[in-house]
């Protein structure tokens, strides 16, 4: 048995842990959990925990529905919200087939495979996400439009900013779980908040995003409120995005850094950026996977629907931050279209694959776009060679379907299941009569 597994067994015993939650993620990016007792832990390390995957989104197969959850001992954390008399802990799992080969439907394995491929070329992939979300009074759509906590007469007894208080408690809990927070603040919109996580390797980042979404929701729920990562929950108010900062390291060297370049970007950095941009249309169905995602992308603000890059241009898809001198390790690019309702394992897989394709094929980076792209019409943008991102989930799925890069990165199983699932979501949406239509057409026609 590995030392880190021994460590987990010992900690479980010493801390009197009663329940160990084995976490994994379905193809749509929802966190799932199988709970085991300490008595089952050693066997879980040795043999894995077998369960029926047929009810998990994206896990079903034709011949065999059982899979094995293999706990990753390095991800063992006590859950800070568990009660004193019943401590519990979690570990992320990798999912295997019964013959112990990696299960193709497991998003974490997909990211692991892509990171290993990058590693074989000498690269490690680091990322830092900026996660936005709203606090509402309720998550029940039947009570009407979501009410932001700040404006709802919700906590009448308190005068302080209730939602900022929730955010602070969230950050303490994240830090207690070893997830360092870089910044956090109140966003422009009522009850909208942002939490920026520190740089780490992409697999840990994806795990951290899964943990963050749970912790944010949990803390809100404990106060009787509701936190939402829905990309565009309110009309006329900026939606929630998840800008991600990306960089590649080769050993200790930041591959993107070149101090002599006016943008501070190396050849490989430019090629990676070119790859991310060139394949952006193909990867959007995954980075923005909801019908609702495209309502955020159509707003004229922080959500950039145009495939361009710049140093300081909020309308560009990729921002190359201007860096202080003498910090080569912080060279990075910021990819601004993803939203916090994506599956982070799949989204990071595609960003990495697209960027590495740029490097391996030696893509050329187009010129920087410093004009505000929102102010141009589509003829002017077309004249500049600037394409828009897909405007709907439907269009995004069409582009994704013809992408050999996305298929290779996700693997056939997830690629095909995702398209089937999302096509069906789109067709349900398309055949639904919306409040917009009723309000607009019923009085007139």
């Amino acid at each position, binding site marked *: 048995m590995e*030392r880190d597994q021994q460590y987990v067994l010992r900690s479980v015993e010493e801390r009197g842990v009663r329940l160990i939650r084995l976490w994994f993620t379905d193809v749509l990016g929802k966190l799932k959990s199988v709970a085991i007792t300490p008595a089952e832990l050693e066997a879980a390390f040795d043999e894995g925990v077998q369960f029926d995957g047929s009810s998990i989104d994206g896990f079903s197969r034709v011949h065999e529905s059982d899979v094995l959850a293999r706990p990753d001992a390095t991800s063992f954390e*006590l859950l800070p919200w568990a009660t004193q008399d019943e401590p519990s802990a979690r570990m992320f799992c990798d999912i295997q087939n019964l013959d112990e080969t990696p299960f193709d439907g497991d998003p974490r394995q997909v990211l692991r495979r892509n990171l290993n491929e990058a590693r074989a070329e000498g690269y490690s992939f680091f990322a830092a996400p900026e996660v936005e979300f709203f606090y509402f009074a309720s998550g029940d759509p039947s009570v009407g439009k979501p009410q932001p906590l700040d404006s709802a007469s919700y906590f009448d007894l308190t005068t302080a900013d209730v939602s900022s208080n929730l955010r602070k408690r969230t950050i303490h809990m994240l830090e207690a779980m070893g997830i*360092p927070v870089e910044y956090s603040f109140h966003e422009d919109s009522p009850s909208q908040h942002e939490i920026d996580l520190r740089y780490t390797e992409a697999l840990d980042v994806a795990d951290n995003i899964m943990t963050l979404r749970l912790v944010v929701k949990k803390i809100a729920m404990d106060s009787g409120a509701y936190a939402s990562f829905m990309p565009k929950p309110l009309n006329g108010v900026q939606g929630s995005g998840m800008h991600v900062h990306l960089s590649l390291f080769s050993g200790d060297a930041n591959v993107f850094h070149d101090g002599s370049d006016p943008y501070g970007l190396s050849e490989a950095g430019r090629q990676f950026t070119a790859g991310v941009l060139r394949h952006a249309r193909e990867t959007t169905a995954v980075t923005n996977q909801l019908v609702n995602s495209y309502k955020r992308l159509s707003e004229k603000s922080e959500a950039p629907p145009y495939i361009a890059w710049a140093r300081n241009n909020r309308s560009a898809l990729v921002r190359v931050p201007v860096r202080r001198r003498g910090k080569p390790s912080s060279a990075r690019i910021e990819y601004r279209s993803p939203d916090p309702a994506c599956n982070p394992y799949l989204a990071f897989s595609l960003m990495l694959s697209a960027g590495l394709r740029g490097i391996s094929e030696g893509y050329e980076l187009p010129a920087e776009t410093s004009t505000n792209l929102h102010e141009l019409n589509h003829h002017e943008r077309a004249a500049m060679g600037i394409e828009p991102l897909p405007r709907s989930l439907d269009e995004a799925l069409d582009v994704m379907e013809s992408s050999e890069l996305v298929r290779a990165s996700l693997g056939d199983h997830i690629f095909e299941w995702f398209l089937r699932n999302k096509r069906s979501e789109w067709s349900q949406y398309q055949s639904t009569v919306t409040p917009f239509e009723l309000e607009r057409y019923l009085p007139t026609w």
Partner: protein
Amino acid sequence: MEPLLVFPDPVPPELAQTLDIGGWAWKAAVDVAAARADEPADGWVGAIVMAGSDLEPALRFCRSVHNGEVSVRSLLLLINGGHLQSLDPHHDLFDDFCLHPFHPQELEIRLKHLFRRGGQTDDVELIEYGPLAMNLETYQAAIDARPLDLTYMEYELLKFLAAHPGKVFTRETLLNRVWGYDYYGGARTVDVHVRRLRSKLSEEHANLIQTVRSVGYSFGRSRWG
């Protein structure tokens, strides 16, 4: 603690790693002459002799120890399973043996049993520094008597740093000593774990681990500063 003698030199990486992680000081010797040259004033506390595919060089080394050419208090022999048969007539040459490839934990237990018996050396089971306490037997850590929930690597990193207060380590050294020699990922891994540790130590105690600019990290206060 006085170093252990390890034969042969170079020491296989998995053995070096296990010794380092276990916090053992050691010195490798290429032959008997080297072992004698480096011999501490009152002899070696212990020796680990590792046999390769040929058992004979290791046995020769053991015989020299047995004959008193090198002074060693206890000797642990590492052999592979194929040599078990031929070990029979040589029982007097070693105090304990362990099969190679070894299980790091088994080796650790045997080393402790053999070389720390009778309080010959200080058996560090507890590290205490200011508000921090670490119990190395139970893998538990606490700050201000509040339990710290650490992952294995966070625990190992904190243990290593706290065992050497005031000493500055480069990221490379930490990577080698805590993660092991074949760890992929570079010194950024160290930064990431230090950040995680600091966030768990909470703001109040985050400065227990200090960044030493353009060098690396140190724990606590230097005894010189």
